[in-house]
């Protein structure tokens, strides 16, 4: 180790006093343990261990609670003072910016002493602690009165009533300087192995406590930062939502009005100028009307899509069979009279969800089934449910136009359609609404089908 090196840094005239000097520099990783020599030592050591265990448990409890670091450091200092009843202990904390040490905990040192050494520089030969912090090694000054490290502080120490000071650097787990743990005595004293073990333990424990509080403070800071971030984001989001609300409001009002004029005045032209328009002219005006109406449907669908994603979800138990039945009855009324439909509604398991939203989902599925089977002479729609993977899966099967499996991944995408508008009109929004609603309920949607052979659409919802 570097004991001799440290000595060699002393000046020549100090070497004269070498015999009086009681200061020894120990390497902090020296092994302090040694075998017990007698029964009485055994008993003392057992008592000390009991005290240590008890104090350690108390301090760990403080650490677990929200106790501040200065209180905990005082507890550590007092626990060491209890183990060595003749001692006065202190913890100094290292300030990296100023390269100084400041008082951390010194409950039994007089205030004038603590004030005087508060902010002392770290450096070779500046007391025991300044030197220990400088060398990152244990510095034991056995006799303050004669040791050169203490020349400048000796009077102060005598006034405080201490004559020896051993100081162990407190190092972080990454080896950085955290502070020092010092044990003072009222008379000159050389540390025994048990003392060296104790001061090493004290410094390790102090570091654990300090690191714990530092990490805790960092976590708290992160948590506060996160909370602030969440609050800011929430505000931004609700602001954006309000804007979207205003936007969709004005879309709903302002975009419809011109469409009504386009469709209305085209119709007026058809009515008032029928005799002046040939078939082509009438067809052209009808195209204008139809497109205005289609645009109207698009606006309605986009609005309901954006509304559904913003609307608050209100959960209740859903009688899925009743929902399917009501929706089917309602939609069948709107079907062309010639469209014969067989509706097979099995016993459906109930679920939990937003009644209005799920009714919308069911409406979209059934109206799709009806729409795409309009050209099927014997339309058959079968609705069933089964329990699988911890949820209820509802399936709507039809024997309509079906779809090409190749384009399956486009089915639920907004504005994407697998059929020509001439064959089956639509806006390409219905299934994306379905997907959004089901996903908001924690479920999934899927589809199976083949061109010309019908389709089966499934969605899952929670089990009651």
């Amino acid at each position, binding site marked *: 180790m570097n004991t001799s090196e440290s000595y060699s840094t002393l000046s020549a005239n100090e070497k004269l006093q070498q015999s009086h000097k009681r200061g020894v520099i120990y390497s902090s990783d020296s092994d302090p343990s040694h075998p017990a020599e007698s029964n009485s030592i055994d008993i003392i050591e057992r008592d000390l261990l009991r005290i240590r265990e008890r104090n350690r448990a108390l301090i760990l409890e403080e650490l677990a609670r929200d106790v501040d670091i200065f209180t905990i450091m005082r507890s550590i200092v007092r626990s060491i003072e209890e183990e060595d009843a003749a001692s006065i202990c202190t913890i100094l904390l290292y300030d990296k910016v100023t390269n100084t040490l400041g008082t951390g905990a010194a409950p039994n040192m007089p205030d004038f002493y603590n004030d005087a050494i508060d902010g002392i520089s770290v450096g070779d030969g500046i007391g025991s602690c300044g030197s220990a912090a400088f060398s990152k090694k244990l510095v034991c000054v056995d006799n303050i009165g004669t040791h050169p490290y203490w020349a400048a502080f000796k009077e102060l120490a005598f006034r405080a009533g201490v004559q020896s000071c051993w100081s162990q650097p407190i190092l972080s787990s990454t080896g950085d300087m955290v502070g020092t743990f010092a044990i003072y005595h009222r008379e000159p004293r050389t540390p025994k192995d048990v003392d060296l073990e104790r001061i090493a333990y004290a410094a390790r424990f102090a570091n654990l406590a300090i690191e714990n509080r530092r990490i805790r403070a960092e976590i708290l800071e992160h948590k506060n930062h996160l909370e602030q971030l969440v609050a800011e984001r929430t505000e931004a989001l609700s602001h954006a939502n309000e804007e979207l609300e205003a936007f969709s*409001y004005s879309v*709903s*009002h*302002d975009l*419809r*009005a*011109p*469409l*009504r*004029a386009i*469709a*209305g*005045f*085209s*119709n*007026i032209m058809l009515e008032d100028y029928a005799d002046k328009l040939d078939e082509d002219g009438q067809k052209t005006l009808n195209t204008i*009307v139809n497109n*205005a*109406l289609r645009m*109207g449907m698009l606006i*309605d669908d986009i*609005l309901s899509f954006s509304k559904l994603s913003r609307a608050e979800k209100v959960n209740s138990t859903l009688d899925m069979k009743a929902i399917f039945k009501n929706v089917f009855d309602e939609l069948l009324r709107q079907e062309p009279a010639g469209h014969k439909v067989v509706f097979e509604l099995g016993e459906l398991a109930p679920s939990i969800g937003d009644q209005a939203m799920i009714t919308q989902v069911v409406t979209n599925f059934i109206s799709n089934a009806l729409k795409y089977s309009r050209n099927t002479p014997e339309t058959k729609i079968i609705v069933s449910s089964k329990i699988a993977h911890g949820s209820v899966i509802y399936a709507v099967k039809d024997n309509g136009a079906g779809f090409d499996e190749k384009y399956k991944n486009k089915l639920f995408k907004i504005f994407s359609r697998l059929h020509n508008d001439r064959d089956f009109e639509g806006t390409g929004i219905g299934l994306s609404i379905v997907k959004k609603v089901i996903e908001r309920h924690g479920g999934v949607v899927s589809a199976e089908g083949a061109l010309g052979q019908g389709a089966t659409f499934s969605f899952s919802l929670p089990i009651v």
Partner: protein
Amino acid sequence: MNIKEYPEVLLVEDREEDAVLTIRALKKYNLINDIKWLEDGQHALDYLFGTGPEKVLQAIPKLILLDLKLPRVNGLEVLEQIKASEGLKSTPVIMMTSSKEDVDIKKAYELGVNSYIVKPIDFMNFADAVKQLGMYWLMLNQPPKPTQ
């Protein structure tokens, strides 16, 4: 000097196209002879309460058709003042609007609207809606007798 006016129906509508379509539908089914069309909410209030420089209403119309989104004073504000007025509160007021917004519908009914119609884009449906409400309010409905 004020010109005396006795319109059967008062229409408050800022979009000329919608006004034309509405008037056309009402006339087509011979539901009205006389309709007064005003283009904004402030005009409507001035007309109804005689607060403006122009023509003043002399008799209460049988029906007021009110658009929701109007310049200056919107339809809900006009509705509120009509329903707060002793002389006018019995007059049926129908909101005719493009807005399907639930908040508007709720607010209009809270203020005492008699009907709330979302104007269809489809002309046929639109004409049909106007015809039906005209038939109901102008022919079927029995209003209270004027007190004076």
